[in-house]
């Protein structure tokens, strides 16, 4: 059976830049969709050379605002994926959409193109807060977009951002309770994060914006976990909630550290080649990316094999975000040795402290552990020495070549 592969396609344009957002998203007066589509298609061709003969389990149009793409472009890209690879029968094809009316009208076109799941950036169900978040839509439009999504797509999800300035537990609880009936089987609920370089970060540094402190943020997080758990949409990842079986297949690929290719400006990929993970990264600036693809067929500017240590770190920090944790055999394939042998006493301390749980099958971060995952990871890794002998086979220790040419 062919190895599974997920495909991420990045559309780097937005109508306006939200003050909290550090995604690779840009506002441009005009965008030539035909030219961009050609470039993305060409980059897909190149990705197929990097990771041939796979079975596609997911395609994800992310952004930026992919709902600004003409449906024909989306259709062309999906067609090209189908032409380059075998497609799993259960393939999930998601598109991120902003809840503005113009975009809502394209929903049917996306379905026709092959999109079978919509992810809506609602962010808030409160007009005041939507304004403060710099969004172009209001609550009414958000509700209309959710209605449309429900009508058009079998699967949809929407995003909310919480722990906003001045948001009380009561207010967030009420907003969540209002959101639950609107959801079908999936919700992404993010704590507002101050990303370096954003306008919000600058405001906060200047004292003009103050977000909830650790205790308050923890209370909001715990409230979210409880409310969603009780509603039958438990967290399967730190910020993602679904009815069992309705998880986002695409994002699961990231967290399970499965292979994916990244198409479009700034996109990253992880591809297993001869037993080692190869990382790929695209040129970030849209214009540079475009000219790179038009000149060389790809916008990739970095392709390198990860060391065993790097890959292990990535698998841990991604995998422990999931409620299901990390399967031990998968971990051993990447790390080249057994979890217990590798981590020793910090692992035991963290298990004794109730932050991690280890059984014969899996390593899992407990609820408490996931709430403090960054600290757990740091504590787990303190003493890890990847070069230590007796950990992994000699073959596993052989380090892969560091730099591969961008074109394989």
């Amino acid at each position, binding site marked *: 059976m062919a190895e599974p592969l997920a495909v991420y396609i990045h559309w780097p344009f937005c109508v306006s830049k939200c003050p909290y957002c550090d995604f690779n998203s840009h506002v441009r007066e005009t965008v030539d969709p035909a030219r961009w589509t050609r470039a993305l298609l060409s980059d897909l061709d190149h990705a197929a050379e990097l990771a041939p003969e796979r079975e596609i389990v997911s395609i994800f149009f992310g952004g930026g605002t992919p709902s600004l793409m003409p449906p024909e472009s989306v259709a062309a890209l999906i067609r090209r994926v189908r032409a380059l690879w075998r497609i799993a029968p259960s393939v999930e094809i998601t598109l991120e959409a902003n809840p503005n009316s113009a975009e809502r009208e394209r929903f049917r076109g996306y379905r026709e193109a092959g999109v079978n799941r919509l992810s809506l950036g609602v962010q808030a169900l409160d007009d005041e807060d939507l304004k403060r978040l710099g969004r172009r839509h209001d609550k009414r439009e958000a509700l209309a977009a959710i209605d449309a999504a429900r009508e058009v797509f079998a699967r949809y999800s929407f995003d909310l951002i919480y722990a906003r300035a001045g948001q009380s537990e009561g207010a967030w609880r009420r907003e969540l309770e209002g959101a639950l009936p609107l959801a079908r089987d999936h919700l992404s609920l993010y704590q507002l994060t101050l990303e370096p370089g954003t306008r919000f970060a600058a405001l906060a540094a200047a004292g003009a914006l103050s977000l909830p402190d650790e205790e308050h943020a923890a209370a909001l997080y715990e409230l979210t976990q409880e409310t969603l758990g009780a509603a039958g949409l438990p967290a399967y990842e730190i910020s993602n909630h679904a009815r069992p079986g309705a998880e986002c297949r695409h994002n699961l690929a990231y967290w399970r550290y499965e292979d994916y290719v990244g198409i479009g400006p700034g996109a*990253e990929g*992880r591809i297993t080649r001869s037993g080692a993970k190869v990382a790929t990264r695209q040129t970030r600036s849209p214009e540079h990316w475009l000219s790179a693809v038009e000149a060389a067929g790809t916008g990739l500017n970095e392709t390198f094999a990860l060391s065993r240590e790097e890959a292990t770190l990535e698998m841990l920090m991604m995998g422990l975000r999931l409620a299901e944790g990390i399967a031990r055999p998968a971990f051993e394939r990447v790390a080249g040795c057994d979890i217990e042998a590798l981590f020793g006493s910090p692992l035991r301390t963290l298990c004794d402290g109730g932050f991690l749980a280890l059984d014969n099958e899996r390593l899992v971060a407990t609820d408490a552990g996931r709430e403090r995952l960054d*600290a757990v990871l*740091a504590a787990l890794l303190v003493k890890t020495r990847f070069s230590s002998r007796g950990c992994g086979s000699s073959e596993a220790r052989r380090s892969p070549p560091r730099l591969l040419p961008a074109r394989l």
Partner: protein
Amino acid sequence: MTPLSRIRNFAIIAHIDHGKSTLADRLIEACGGLEAREMREQVLDSMELERERGITIKAQTVRLHYRAKDGEDYVLNLVDTPGHVDFSYEVNRSLAACEGSILVVDASQGVEAQTLANVYQAIEAGHEIVPVLNKIDLPAAEPLRVKEQIEEVVGLDAKDALLVSAKTGLNVGSVLEALVQRLPAPVGDGNAPLKALLVDSWYDPYLGVVILVRVRDGVLKSGEKIRLMATGAVHTVERVGVFTPKPSSAPALGPGEIGFITAGIKAVADCRVGDTITADRRPASAPLPGFKPVQPVVFCGLFPTDAADYERLRESLAKLRLNDASFRYEPETSAALGFGFRCGFLGLLHLEIIEERLRREFDLDLVATAPSVVYRVHLRDGEVMTLHNPVDMPDPVTIDHIEEPWIRATIFVPDAYLGGVLALCEERRGRQVDLTYAGNRAMLIYRLPLNEVVFDFHDRLKSVSRGYASFDYQLDGYEEGALVLMNILVNGESVDALSLIVHRDEAERRGRALCERLKDLIPRQLFQVAIQAAIGGRIIARETVKALRKDVLAKCYGGDVTRKRKLLEKQKEGKKRMRQFGKVEIPQSAFIAALKMGEE
């Protein structure tokens, strides 16, 4: 060589800021020692730090040529002295090279603590003292009152005190004339075997080790083989000269003269201050009375905040010691702070100056542990050990008792602030010896444990007196004290760099302050962190850093992986600078910050 009757050797002594350096400038100018374009303020303060802080650290000398009213030409050798008590040793040896002193008193301030201390030293050195009231140009000058004060408090005859403004130059000529008329000429025998006092020595990048000498008998010439009597080492004199204040060669130095020699000596440490220099071929029968070697009285650990700077710190300390043999250091290892040095100083100012020079001239970022004095620990078995590092404290059950050094402090303070100063001295376990008044200023004599003075006493004194108190002290023996070792425990383990020897009654307050400070500095951890202050097994203060409640990235998708991994790698790297206490890891920076914050 100058005939003895035409030589006057003198020092200028003064409380800090009373105008010693400015007066020296005027005297040099008046005698044409430097051309106008070479003149700058306080020419004798050569170190950047000296100029900036307005203090003299190293003694300097200058030879002046003066034609007196009697028409004769005189050589006046001015020996500048440091004004601060920490360097009283240097004052001492400067005074030993002279027959008299000019006592400078600020006519608007009056007598201060160091005025007194310096005068006593000058009297002990057998000096003739010429009182000079300076800053007479100031409207606030009260020459009559200050004259009275000099007579009452200092006990000198001030009838003939000179009224001078070093700033405007007013009456500076009268100072020169008084030197000639009132100070005795030196005595000595040019034909006797060579006997010269080694006053000071320092390392000069161009000349090598330079020795400052005062010749008593005989003659010092270049090419001559000299012997340092204390060590027996023999060297050949390369260069003989005087400071004008620029070094300039002279054919020879005869009796009564002050000047310098170089003799191919490698290290300052080989030249003992106070030693007698004699001729190898015709040595003197007995050395001049020397000084007792100085002992550091204050110690602290100095650690580089960046471990990579350790070697540079070692080199820098070695360089500083080239010119300052009174300061000591030896390697020290701390579990909390890593590798560093235990250093000994003559006093707190000395410590501050060395620390500041390391930071400034050598660009080192340092952390200093709390200063400690030298304790005498009497053990049950009769043995006595000296201790200046709390971590060396022996097991309490083996200790019979501990003695600590005391000082006799002289404090001058305006009436209005006397109450605050008295309270401070009492709080610091002081015992009043004397309290007298001179006008509206009180002179307070207190005995205090040095331990209480090295710990922020100066700052407190400054704040309770708004800066108007002056302070001076001398060591005054050892006394038994109820001293205990206080440890700071983090999750039950002692943090060596924060251990302190304190009086039992002070322990709780200090312990609580340290615990509170650490509580704010230690970041939250997965597990709660207990911070305790303990004396032996008894906990006297406790704080808790609550466990971390939430610490996780909200979003982490395929495009975030590289960036987030790098963050994690950096965090893992940072953990190398952490110190494990049971289940938690405390960044070294927390301890550094705790020490850097100073008290309160």
